[in-house]
């Protein structure tokens, strides 16, 4: 057993969870205010490419992150425009954005870079003293900065949602937009903000892949990760800690499956591959049945509608 549950498995879990965390938390804000964005994967890919290309030509990692944030914000704005102002069917417009991001990132890659190249991304940072702890050191304290940032965002998001006026507005707009509107809260402005922030975090998720965890870019780098991130928002019941739990659980099973294979235990590959998905579903069935779904999720707001 100790061969399977090694420190490296847990460390691997935290790394794998990072892009899910960024994207899911971003999506959570949007959904809390009532907007579903299925285009997360596409925005991630564009952000990943933007960050990668920037680092490739400037070797400036911070600039890479900034570019990813800007690209994510722009695409988030477009998504907000389509979903909030044009009131288009949110599930589908998201798929359109996904296809656009998928194709565009690959096209830009082909035209601007051409063939897979690798870069020096964010290096692992060993926190002083803490990283020398026997097992915990390897698991928690030797990651690159984006991993730390992703996990730090969890309590920050929880605080924002629960204890700030801003969070209150978001929740109100998602639960009862008519009432919020009557109270003087601009539903449109809140939703624009959350979706744009969601886009920024998706872009950051992409950057975490291309300039921190993988240090390479290729077509369809995310391989559907963004969709899982959206699903994890539901798993986490629209709460930051729940989202974190989901991301960690999912990543843990993936890391476990890789570890089992790495030490030579023979498990049918297909069962190993499907295990994260099955376990996530099972976990959800046994979890609390309390639904706190934002009532207005996917419903565009029109003043005068009840």
């Amino acid at each position, binding site marked *: 057993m100790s061969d399977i549950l090694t420190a490296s498995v847990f460390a691997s879990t935290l790394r794998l969870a990072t892009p899910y965390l960024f994207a899911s938390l971003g999506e959570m804000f949007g959904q809390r205010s009532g907007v579903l964005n299925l285009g997360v994967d*596409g925005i991630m890919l564009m952000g990943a490419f933007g960050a990668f290309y920037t680092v490739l030509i400037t070797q400036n990692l911070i600039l890479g992150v900034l570019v990813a944030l800007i690209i994510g914000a722009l695409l988030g704005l477009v998504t907000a425009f*389509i979903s909030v102002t*044009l*009131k*288009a*069917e949110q*599930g*589908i*417009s998201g*798929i*359109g*954005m*996904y*296809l*656009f*991001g*998928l*194709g*565009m990132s*690959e*096209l830009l890659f*082909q*035209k601007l870079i051409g063939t897979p190249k690798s870069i020096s991304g964010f290096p692992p940072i060993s926190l002083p003293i803490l990283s020398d702890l026997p097992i915990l050191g390897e698991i928690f304290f030797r990651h690159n900065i984006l991993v730390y940032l992703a996990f730090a965002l969890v309590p920050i998001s929880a605080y924002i949602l629960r204890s700030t006026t801003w969070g209150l507005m978001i929740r109100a707009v998602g639960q009862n937009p008519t009432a919020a509107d009557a109270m003087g809260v601009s539903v449109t402005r809140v939703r624009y903000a959350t979706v744009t922030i969601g886009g920024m975090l998706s872009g950051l998720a992409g950057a975490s892949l291309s300039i921190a965890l993988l240090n390479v870019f290729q*077509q369809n780098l995310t391989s*559907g990760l963004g*969709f*899982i991130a*959206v*699903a*994890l928002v*539901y*798993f986490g019941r629209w709460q930051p800690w729940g989202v974190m739990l989901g991301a960690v659980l999912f990543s843990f099973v993936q890391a476990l499956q890789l570890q089992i294979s790495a030490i030579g235990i023979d498990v*049918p590959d*297909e*069962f190993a*591959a*499907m295990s994260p*998905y*099955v376990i*996530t*579903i099972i976990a*959800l*069935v046994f979890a609390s*049945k309390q*639904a706190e*779904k934002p009532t207005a999720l*996917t419903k565009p707001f029109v003043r005068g509608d009840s």
Partner: protein
Amino acid sequence: MARVFSRLFDLTPSLLALIAALLISAVLLVVLQVNPIDAYSALAQGAFGNENATAETLVKAIPILFVAIGICVAFRAGMTNIGGEGQMIMGAVAGTAAALALPDAPGIVVVSVSLLMGFVAGALYGGIAGLLKAYFNVNEILTTIMLNQVAVQVMNFLLNGPLLDPTEAGANHIPKTARIAEQAELGRLYFTLPESVGQLFGDTDLFGKTRLHIGLVLAVIIAIVIYVLLWRTIIGYRIRAVGENERASRYAGIRVKHYMLLSMLLAGGMAGLGGVVQVLGLTYRLQTDGSTSGFTANAGFNGIVAALFGGLNPLGAIPASILFGGLLVGAQKMQREVGVSASLITALNGVIVIFVVSSQTFVQARARSRLMQKPVPTPSSTSLSQGDTV
């Protein structure tokens, strides 16, 4: 009659949006030093340019239509079914296994059993998500996305093992099943035109040498059946009621959970049918490259988009699926003829979807204004008012 047509032909905004999207994409093409006229004429040629192209467009549209029909049911019941891919795969697996298990049975038997098994498998698979949502309150977007991936692995496992083609010997076998027997094939679909018309085309045999198969007829028939189900039966009424207003339906005595589950069973079954029809009518065996879309060609997603373009109406889904099929087939031709890379086509696909989806708002606005014009029934003087005694 006019009402049916006006529901059908709310395609105008979609078409306008399509044109707008193509114009914007033309700019991108110019930037990439591709002549947009060359590109779009290749697109048109690939979609409807000749008999073979049109046939391929229809062939592409068939699985999309099946999925779209199911989506109409699911979305109308308020269930966001993103599991079309997985349901299609399960249907294909079950249907192929059934066809292979009856190698000597007469054609009509094999085909019927196979289609039935495909429907049932897809239905059960969709039913899992439906059950979890209705009775355990587990969100169906989550479950269907996850189940898609699970279905791929199930298919990989079966195609690499129990269902593997016995003639695939050696170390480097391809995961695929044996070919189904000839009598299990869905026949080719072609029309024999009367002499006079045939002379115009130079050929009395329409679609004779193409891959168009009877699955198209099956899909259209089912579209009509589901249309009738949704708008002319009590079951359909209840499904739509649950989707429009869950709470009100519950107060009205409709068993909401029951109909949620039913809608997912139907939606999954439709997608499953789409999967098995692909095998029986087109590929004649089930084969995988390990990913979802190697077999499904993303019909599970495209079906959602087509359903929406068609106004969540199975009859509207027919022209929508054909148009979508044309776009996809034409885009591939564009890649071959003009050298436009596949990624541009994917991006173009996305732009078109965004534009057309955005245009639907005008449809809804129009529907809303239509609704405003109807007189709203007000509590009349015949109803008792508070304080009256019976």
